[in-house]
């Protein structure tokens, strides 16, 4: 199976991934994230890095909507759309 890999992404896509990662990381409440149980912390950190909601939800073993609510509680933007002028 081919996993999403930074080094294989076209330039524009890689830039988007890095911008999104920076935004998620900047807004995240790291104090609260550090207090999460390991399973959830790993899932949330994976989401911050990769932005893959479905995979992170599976890692957290949570329903989709519950996981989205967890991300909101942690102040992590769930979706980011980069607008190109």
């Amino acid at each position, binding site marked *: 199976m081919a996993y999403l890999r930074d080094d294989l992404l076209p330039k524009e896509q890689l830039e988007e991934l890095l*911008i999104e990662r920076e935004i998620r990381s900047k807004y995240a409440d790291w104090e609260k994230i550090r207090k999460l149980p390991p399973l959830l912390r790993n899932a949330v950190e994976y989401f911050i890095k990769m932005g893959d909601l479905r995979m992170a939800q599976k890692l957290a073993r949570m329903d989709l*909507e519950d996981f989205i609510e967890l991300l909101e509680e942690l102040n992590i933007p769930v979706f980011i759309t980069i607008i190109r002028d």
Partner: protein
Amino acid sequence: MTELIASIDTCFLIEWCRYRNRDLLVKAFKYAYVTEDVLVEVKSEKTLEFTSNLLSSGFLVIYPFRRELESIVRSIIDISINDSRIRVIDPPEAYAFAIGVREKCIVLTENKGIVRLVEFYGEKFPVKVWGAYELLKFLYERGYIRNLEDELRNYTMDTHHMFPRSK
């Protein structure tokens, strides 16, 4: 009256229903398809209430030909598994996208795997994929929204969806 038809996936629906002007969805489309998987994933009171209203009003239609989507779904998932540029697409999003392919309607999703799939395999899947930004822009162009920038700010306040501009 609009003649556009949409196919909506779970992530889009969950997010859109948090938006203060969520009822604008019915201004943009004549009706919208969902699969039963989408309804199963909807859990919170506010999402359930919004979804039930859309179903009972006849705006949301449960897609009746699910079995006929299987070959398209297989093809979508196969590509996403084998192409490292594309995030693996899960069945709920793949079905929503397959409806768009089969019915030639607009797919409402925030799934980046789907967006990339259309970018890289547009000839195979000639489908319009819209996220909240494209839908808000469409509503603005049709006069349902007065100021797009203000509405994007409202959307961010309600949903935490961010719309940074590229430098």
